[in-house]
């Protein structure tokens, strides 16, 4: 595995990743192997976050470096090179603009090979429903930081049922004020206590 690429993503070297990927491609390295190196870099960054060695700016840096590297790599990848573990739509519920937790979950899932569609913050009930219809994910993840906004999660689940989508998507919820009991009460499939749990939680649902 190309350790230089691993380290560049892990350390969020947004500024040099494109050169490095281009250089590796020019020297004959396979795009699929470079993709695996970038994924390993993301995972290493996530591991360091879990250990308390890395913080938000480092995670964002690694995510940006991964995206920049993919910008170079994507056109070179063949169909089948990017084997996704599954697709997850993530968003923060209406009235809530906190996205740190959601971003962390997205980061963890991406680094584990899931295709993550982040639909942002302050997402309306209709916005979640539209995203499920459009992207057809296996899992929908909703986040809230406020006790007042978490109530919107139940609205989304009801709307998914009304639209006949509930059986086609697993729903996970997370965020400071949310609990396992609340997940059960509103009919979610699972509750994640922190971002680190996200990968095993989603894998367990699929």
């Amino acid at each position, binding site marked *: 595995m190309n350790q230089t690429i691993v380290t560049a993503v892990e350390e*969020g070297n*947004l*500024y*040099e990743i494109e050169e490095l990927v281009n250089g590796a491609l020019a020297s004959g390295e396979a795009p699929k192997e470079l993709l695996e190196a970038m994924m390993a870099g993301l995972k290493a960054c996530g591991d360091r*976050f879990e250990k*308390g060695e890395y*913080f*938000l*700016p*480092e995670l*964002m*840096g690694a995510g*940006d470096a991964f995206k920049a590297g993919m910008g170079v790599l994507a056109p070179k990848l063949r169909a089948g090179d990017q084997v996704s573990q599954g697709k997850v739509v993530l968003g923060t519920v209406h*009235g*809530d*603009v*906190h*996205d*740190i937790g959601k971003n962390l979950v997205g980061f963890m899932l991406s680094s584990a090979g899931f295709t993550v569609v982040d639909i942002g913050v*302050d997402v309306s009930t209709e916005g979640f429903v539209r995203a499920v219809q459009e992207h057809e994910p296996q899992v929908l993840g909703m986040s809230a930081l*406020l*006790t*007042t*906004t978490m*109530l919107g999660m139940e609205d989304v689940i009801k709307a998914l049922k009304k639209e006949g989508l509930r059986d086609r998507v697993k729903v996970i919820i997370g965020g*400071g*004020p949310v*609990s*396992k*009991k609340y997940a059960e009460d509103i009919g979610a499939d699972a509750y994640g*206590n922190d971002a680190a749990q996200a990968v095993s939680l989603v894998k367990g649902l699929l």
Partner: protein
Amino acid sequence: MANIALTMAKGLLKHKLHLGELTGVERFMVGALMLPDRASTFLAATNVEPDLIDPRFDYELLTQSMEANLELFELVRQRVKADVVAVPYWMGFMFCGAAELGTRFKVEKRRVPYPVDYPIKQKADIDKIPLPEQATGHLKMMFDINKEVQRRYPDSLVMLSLDGPWDLAMLLRGDRELPQDLRAYKDFTEAKDQATRDKIRRFRDPEVYPAIMEKTTAVAIRLTQLAEQSGLSLLGSALVDQYASKPIMSREDYFKYVHPYRVRVWEATGKRMNPGYLVPSPKEAEENMKDPVLGKAQGTFTNYIFPQTPEGLTLPEYDRPMMDLARARKQSYGYMIHGKYLRDATEAQLDATVQRICNMAVETRTNLMVLIASVPPGASVEKANYVFQLVEKYGRY
């Protein structure tokens, strides 16, 4: 408060000479110097959901009417029996002047106002942020509410809370962009060579971060001046940068890239503000005490951002070390019952939790303050009162 020294002297005399039960504020003040009669209790009124107190109140009304805030505060004081009931306004982060500086907040009836658009989109916008000449809008309303509370309830504790440079920057730039500005600045200043610095510049302007922080430092200083001009005291007031701690940034980055700006605000205010810095572990609380500025902070010993169980309870193994540290520093340990736990725990669970923490404080002769900083939907004022009654039952020294 009419006269802090007088209240403290009165409280100390009453306590020493056993001249009757201390009032809540007297207990709080005595606790700053010695062990009072029992553990004290504190409620942050601002985080009690308005409709739990009275459904006539909502955030649309409360962000417009000073009288509504004062009326609701009076109702909270009547219904919640805590030693100190403080922070008498319900405006979300609109209280700190960001709305007047260009941050657009969304205000809905049943949700705390939240920022949806930020005035600093590029470096050129920083210069457009004015240094306010006078308090206006929601900032003025917050000042006026504090003054009126002080007038109406001279025995209450009015503690001014103002955002510091980092938290102001988060409100003016946004919590997505600012960490990336910091990252670019950090990478740029730590780059080994010019070639790397040139590469960094191609992706993001590294000068944005220091420019924003210079501006928000000046704004933070200006806001403290306006508070004083409004007749409010900075003594005991808090300089809040709650988003400059983990997991937003490392402690090292805090000291290198945020702390110097906060020190400037602290010094400009005659070192009268409380420059607290939240920590996620007893070890870091101890380290704070070695810093010449953070070491002067009160309220350092709190479980506010400690790791929690899924139920919302602070990891219990952290309590004893924090009590030992607080006692050694002649401070109190602020034990917060988090909103999530208050909402979900049964009365028996609350009883066990409060009994455990009070017993530990009594046994170790540590000044304990039990805080409730959030009464969310699904909880109730009665449940908050139940916690405070438990402190009265178990917390006598």
